């Protein structure tokens, strides 16, 4: 056997299709079928060569191959070298055994695929073969029976044991000043506020900078509107974006 005769061209279709393979064994099986011999008789040396050539062209085409394809390539390169060298009695298992093992796995995968197909081709219930279509009305006693399936049981347990992973998302409330808080603060103060004063002077201590200031301003403004609605205060703004002023409403 010279190296040249082993070089089987890799069809472009395979490269385009690389995503369609279910892992390295599936790819190897597709390549092995091109040898058109019984999979148990296959030349593993030739197959290794084919696989390595395929990986090489995939790399040239800049296709990102999953790691397991590369691990298989490394292993096949090692197997190839051992098959070409004279057997080393020290090394276990022998290269021939490894090659036979790989051929076995390929043949078994193909056989299981054929068996799966044969299974699917069998007459199927409610497609080819039918049960009695009519349920006979039976006038007798009704019994209610509770039931559950294994699927229900396993799902329930899985749900319980992972409940903490799926607890509802709760908003972080730090840095939020609510309208209720602003109202609680303003209501006892407003009676003493006879003259117009800017709303920004009403902000609670510690809420006068950054995002906290924005939150407190919004809440205080909403609370001020509530007080106006209740007839406890007047509110005034001289122009768009001008400061907002608030004062207690004089008793009528």
């Amino acid at each position, binding site marked *: 056997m010279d190296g040249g005769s082993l070089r089987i061209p890799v069809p472009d279709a395979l490269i385009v299709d690389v995503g369609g393979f279910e892992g390295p064994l599936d790819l190897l099986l597709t390549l092995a079928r091109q040898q058109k011999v019984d999979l148990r008789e296959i030349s593993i040396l030739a197959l290794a060569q084919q696989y390595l050539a395929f990986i090489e062209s995939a790399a040239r085409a800049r296709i990102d191959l999953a790691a397991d394809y590369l691990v298989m390539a490394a292993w096949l390169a090692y197997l190839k070298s051992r098959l070409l060298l004279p057997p080393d009695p020290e090394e276990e298992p022998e290269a021939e055994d490894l090659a036979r093992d790989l051929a076995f796995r390929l043949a078994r995968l193909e056989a299981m695929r054929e068996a799966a197909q044969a299974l699917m081709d069998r007459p199927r219930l409610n497609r080819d073969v*039918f*049960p*009695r*279509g*009519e349920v*006979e009305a*039976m006038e*007798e*006693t*009704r*019994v*209610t*029976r*509770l*039931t*559950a*399936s*294994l699927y*229900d*049981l*396993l*799902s*329930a*347990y*899985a*749900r*319980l*044991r*992972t*409940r*903490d*992973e*799926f607890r509802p998302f709760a908003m972080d409330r730090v840095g939020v000043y609510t309208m209720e808080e602003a109202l609680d603060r303003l209501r006892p103060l407003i009676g003493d506020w006879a003259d117009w004063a800017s709303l920004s002077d009403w902000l609670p201590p510690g809420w006068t900078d950054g995002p906290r200031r924005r939150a407190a301003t919004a809440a205080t403004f909403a609370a001020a509107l509530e007080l106006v609605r209740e007839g406890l205060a007047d509110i005034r703004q001289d122009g768009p974006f001008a400061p907002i002023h608030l004062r207690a409403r004089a008793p009528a």
Partner: protein
Amino acid sequence: MTAEPPFDVPTPEEQERMVEALLFASPEPLPTAKLAERLPPGCDPRAALARLQRLYEGRGVNLVRSGGAWAFRTAPDLRFLLSREVVETRKLSRAGIETLAIVAYHGPVTRTEIEEIRGVSVSKGTLDQLLELGWVRLGRRRETPGRPATYVTTDAFLDHFALESAADLPSLADLRAAGFLGEPTVQENLPLPDPEP
């Protein structure tokens, strides 16, 4: 007989088989005209119906005609056999199935332990229901203060869920691998149930 030439009329025996299968699979009684429609061209359901009616005479199931439509019916004298048949099945409640799962995985387990795992209290009705179903029974009392009752699953439980033993329930890792759970998380590192007693 395997591949049928399109314009070959089936033999009377074949027609009989076809009518028999059509009536058996139909969810409602079939009028003669409907049968004729479903059969290959050239068939006459009336002849087949008459033969079938004779064939099933005196058997456990009879071919009967009611209001111009045909159906198989249990022989009237055997209806007493079917009387117990009417069973309405209802799904076990969520509380029930969760409690059952906990007893299966962690039994013998006390009610307090079930509540700890579920994070909510277990109503008495839930456990009573499982006891009544025969899926759960009382185990040994726990030798702790108060000597609480424990619960374990029964052989009827194993039978219903087609399990060989409670120890054969898949571990959480198996469940995850089979697709019952989301992605692995820190939960993985928590001490998990060892269903071994």
